[in-house]
């Protein structure tokens, strides 16, 4: 039972981590498709 719950917790952590990490690394769709002259929020 514990590995299952840990796995579900890991899914949540990976999900938020992927979103935060990719955005921090400049991999948002907005980042990837804009030029230097564009200021993103």
């Amino acid at each position, binding site marked *: *039972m514990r*590995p299952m719950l840990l*796995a*579900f917790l890991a899914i949540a952590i990976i999900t938020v981590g*992927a979103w935060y990490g990719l955005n921090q690394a400049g991999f948002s769709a907005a980042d*990837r*498709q*804009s*030029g230097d002259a564009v200021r993103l929020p």
Partner: protein
Amino acid sequence: MQFARILINTLIFLVFAGSVVAQDTPAPDRSVTGGAQTLEDIMARQRGEEVDLDFRRNATGDPGQAAEMSGQLGTLGGVSDPELWRALRFGTADITSTTTSPGATLLVQDGGMAWLTFRDGPLRSWGGYSLLGMLGLLALFYLFRGRIRIEGGRSDATIERFKAVERFGHWLLAGSFIVLGITGLISLFGRVAFIPLFGKEMFATTAMACKWIHNNVAWAFMLGLAMVFVMWVLENIPNRHDLKWMAKAGGLFSKHSHPPARKFNAGQKIIFWAVILLGGSISLSGLSLLFPFELPMFAKTFALINATGAPGWVGLAPLPEVLSPHGEMQLAQAWHAIVSFVLMVIILAHIYLGSVGMEGAYAAMGSGQVDLQWAKEHHGLWVEELEEKGKTPETTARATPAE
């Protein structure tokens, strides 16, 4: 009528995918219009017939023959306005954009309409029917076969089937797959199933949430897929016992039949390889969708397929080896959804057998300890192997009669 509509939609998709069957009809006479499209061209399109548009696609002017700048119409650079619009229409105009997306300089991409028709038609219909069909089959199976019991009765001993890390990997993959499946289905069926029930505003919020969840949970799925592959690949290599198991259909349809199997039987191996191959393919097309226009895969895949000559075996023209950025994304989405439906159908059967369908099966992924009698009936050779290694039976009395 429904079938005809589905068939027509499928044919449209095949055309959209570039699989155009070779035609040898004579070129139509367009002398009356000076080479421009005729009423017959327009009527043919209205009838839904395939019209070779090369006569328009290629009529985009000739800058090489342009008059000097000082000459008559010289400032147009040898390209008339209609020719410029044709180039825009067929995606060959020289366009620059400050947006760096590869898709930004393609202003008209008519493949999108065929893609939408496919997504809203055959994809939803066939995908939905396939899921419902599998649920119906499982219900029938339960009705006629009932729960597959431990024939010899539960023993008072258990044996470790999966270690904690194996169960973690399984649930990482399974949990993320279920979340991805639900959010994917809401994205696909939301307009027809969600909006009528909850309204557009509710669906807009739900759709955005589903997209966010789907995009980010994907990483957990890929990690789980890699873990499961590394942990179990060696034990899932087919062997001679699988043939015997297959010949008896694993004893699924007959009582008192327990074909011998090692740690994984042939049915589980089929599930394993389906998950790895289909899950791998879903991951690749998913990555292509996660990073729009950056990981185009279909043109290269089509080139590899063409190199084998496979399209010719079924009478099709070679697949297109040059695709627009949007065309790549549309194919990635279609493929992602088709393969996902196939995997969902297979996994429904897996979930059934791992839970209500078979007594004692869930414990393998629950506590990791399975009933010894269950193990002997379903994985007899595996139990023998463990006994030979002296690893079993390290049995413990069951504290509770059932999970």
